[in-house]
Each structure stands twice: as C-alpha cells, then as structure tokens.
C-alpha cells in the first residue's frame, strides 16, 4: 500500500513539476489573495499583523480547493482514471499518494505564503516549532479531506461550484485550529497552541482513515 502511495505521489508530483501549473498559477493566486486582503483591510500594519495568521490560513484554504481540483483534473483526460483503476494499485494507496502529493504542494505553498506574510504584513516569525508542527498537522488534514471530496466531485458537470460548497464547511475546524495555533505561536504563548495542534491531529487522522476506507468505492464510479 505504501509503495503504491509513493508511486502515485511521485507520478503526480512529476506531472506538476513538468506542467508548472502549481508554481505558475496556484502559487501566484495565493500571494494575490494576501495582497487583496491588504487592500480590503487597509494598509494599516497593526491590523494586518494581528490578522496575519487567519489571512494566511484562508489563503491556504482557497489554494487547497484549487490544488485538489487540479489533482483530480490530472486523471480526467485520456481515460487516466480508468487506467489508474485497472492498474492493480491498492485504492487506499492511490488515496494516500494523491493526498501526499497535494500535501507536498501545500507545504511548499505555505513556505511561500509565510514569506509573503512576513514581508507584506510584518508578522515576525516566532515559536518556530509550534508553527512547523501546526503546518504539518493542518496540511495532512487539508490534503486528506480535500482529496476525498475531490474524487466525490470528480466527473460532475457542476464540480467547480460544488466542490467549494462541500469542502469549505468541512475544513472550518482546520481554519479555526490552525489560526489559533499560529496566533499562539506568534504571540509567544505557545501553551494553548498545542491543544489546537491536537485537534488538527484528530481531524487529520479521521479523514485519512475515512478516505483510506472509502476511496476504493468512490474511485470505482468516478
């Protein structure tokens, strides 16, 4: 199963590396969101600095929708999904692989956004350990839930509008948890942050487990 996951993740990342859609479109879009927030909230540095954690995660959330949509779009042309189904790979492995590929892209994006937040909003990075662990736990949850919903919406004519409606409410706990943990880290009071990391961990475990179980039957009829 893990070998299959590595194969699928490698395939997805190789395609992304060559097509450069993630780097040329998704990443600039995420940075653009940061700039738009600055326009919306006025260039008042104090306000932007205080809201930095939340704005960062909202940008990540929107990018997640794009990333998982893209991850399923890879399979939609040339009957790639049928090929994947017939390949004999373990469906759980396919799920983990696709989620892992999305997670890698999201982590890279978060590094970029982190730099953007520091530069544009003037939020000083502190509490590095909590920041990193939060980012890892939140990304695992985002990628797992996102990949699960992306395959649910795959092959629908209304998928562009349906996926955000389905996915974003489900991701609300991640937004809350990751934002509070980041705030705790940035305020230099990491104590509370670890509770939130635990919540993010539970979320990630629930969705990885559910996705591993349900992906096979969903992929069958995608």
């Amino acid at each position, binding site marked *: 199963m893990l070998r299959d996951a590595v194969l699928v993740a490698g395939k997805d990342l190789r395609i992304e590396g060559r097509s450069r859609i993630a780097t040329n479109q998704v990443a600039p879009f995420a940075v653009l969101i940061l700039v738009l927030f600055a326009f919306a909230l006025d260039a008042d540095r104090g306000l932007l600095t205080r809201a930095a954690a939340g704005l960062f995660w909202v940008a990540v959330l929107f990018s997640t929708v794009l990333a998982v949509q893209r991850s399923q779009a890879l399979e939609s042309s040339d009957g790639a999904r049928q090929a994947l189904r017939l390949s004999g790979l373990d469906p759980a492995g396919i799920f983990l692989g696709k989620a892992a590929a999305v997670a890698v892209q999201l982590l890279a994006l978060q590094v970029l956004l982190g730099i953007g937040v520091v530069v544009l909003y003037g939020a000083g990075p502190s509490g590095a350990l909590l920041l990193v662990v939060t980012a890892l736990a939140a990304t695992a949850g985002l990628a797992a839930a996102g990949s699960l919903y992306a395959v649910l919406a795959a*092959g629908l*004519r209304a998928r562009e509008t349906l996926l955000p409606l389905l996915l974003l409410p*489900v991701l609300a*706990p991640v937004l809350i948890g990751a934002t*509070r943990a980041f705030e705790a880290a940035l305020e230099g009071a990491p104590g509370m942050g670890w*509770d939130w990391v635990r*919540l993010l961990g539970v979320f990630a475990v629930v969705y990885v487990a*559910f996705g591993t179980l349900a992906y096979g039957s969903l992929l069958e*009829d995608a």
Partner: protein
Amino acid sequence: MTTLRDETTRTGARPVPASTGTAATRVLGGVTLLALGVLLYLAFVASPAAGPSQGFDAVRFMYVHVPSAWLAYLSFAVCALCSALYLWRRTRSRFWDLLAGASAEVGTLFIALTLVTGSIWGRITWGVYWTWDARLTTTAVLFVMFLGYLAVRRVALDVEVRSRRAAVVGIIAFLNVPIVHNSVQWWRTLHQEPTVLRTDLSPQIEGLMLYTLLFGVLTFTLLYAWLVVHRFRVAWLEDRLEAAGLGRAIAERRAEAGLDEDPAVEGVPAPAGPAPDPSGPAGRTTPEVTAP
C-alpha cells in the same frame, strides 16, 4: 395521456397509489395537527412569560426553536444512519437512499427555521441577531454542509453513483459535527470575555414551561415522522416515474426501429435494487423523463 397508474397496471407491476396518504398517515397527520394546536395553546396561553433575563414573552420562541433544533439533529442522524445502511452492501437498497434524502430535506428546512427563530429571539433578548456562540456556529456550519449534501443529490449523474456519493457526503457531514462543535467551543471559550449570552436555559425553566417544551419536542417528532413519510413516498413515486418513462422511451424507440415489443423491456423493474438495465450504462444517467 397515460398516468403512472395506467403504466403500471398495464405492465402488471404492483399498483401505485395515486396519493401519498394512507389510513395510517392520515391518523398520524390528524394527531400531529391536534398536538400542534395544543402546543400553540400551551405556548401562548397556558405557560407564563419569563423573567427579564430571557426577554419576557420572547421566551415563547423557545417552544418552536428548541423542537426545531431537535428535529433537525434527529433528521441528520437518521440521514447518516440510512446512508451507512445504503453503503453497506448487504442492506443496500433504494429505500435507504430515498429515506436519507427525505430526512435530510426535512432537516435542512428545520435547521433554517432554527436559525431564523433563534436570530429573532436573540435580537429581542441579546440585542443582536447573531453571536459566535459554539452552538450557533455549529448549527450554521451544519446547515451549509447539508445544503451541499442536497446539492449532491441533485447533480445529473448515474442514479446509483449519485446515491453512493451522497451517502458518503451525508456520513462525513454528520461525523464532522462533533469536530466542528469542539473547535468552535474552544475558539469561543479561549477568546471571549465571560459570556452573558449563554443559551443554557435548562436550569432556569421548570413547571409548565418545561412541560410545554417537552410537549413541543414530542409534537415536532410526530411532525417529522409525518413529513418524512410523505416526502419519502413522493421520492419513491418520482423514482418509479423515471423508470417508467425510461421503459416507455425504450419501447417507442424499438417500435420505431420496427422491432417487436420486448416484454422484458416493457415490464419495467421496480426501482429497488440494482436492476439490470437494458440500455447500458449511458441510459441510466438520470433520464430526461418524457412527461406523461
């Protein structure tokens, strides 16, 4: 004009009722109506107004608000349970899928009512329509998730595929409730000044108010049963109509092509179970039903 009834009597299938009411549901409906009348009397006449902390007469909103919320959560639990039964291969049948859909529709309506009555009550008592209280926020998120669920039930897709996806969405939405509730609760308790806006009324109500509330919950449970039975029957008939329309369309095409009518095609199978479909996978995508 052929009606559904003609269609099935002609093809010898089980007769289809022309209305969704039966003797049992009429009794149920009558009892519900009576109970609603009694509830109105209890809520507006018999029970006393509350103290100033609960907004005097505005407390009467509680007798609709709390039962609506109860009904909404009940219907989502039923929806999740039916979805699970649908996904489990040994109990898979259209029955569970349609029941899940009927329950979710009723629940979504009542969760909207819960939010509306709660907002009006909040405006009178707290001075604001909305507060980011844990229970309110969870309910709002649940509302949006079930709108998504209903959207999935409406997409144009092979019926079985759609049902399976909807079932997965229904289960996830329900599983997500405790996570959302916990996260929102922590979010508020960690970041809010001691709240005066608690929605706990329970310790302060007693006597007739408590009985009225309990009676409201009972009444709304009856109402739920009545609504879901009828919604389910309508959905079931719709389902049969689609199958009948499909069968007729196939028979017409065959007649056009000069083939003899194939009795196996005309005797349209009831929608229960994964029926073998003569038209292949393409024909099973929600057919544009030729209006009878």
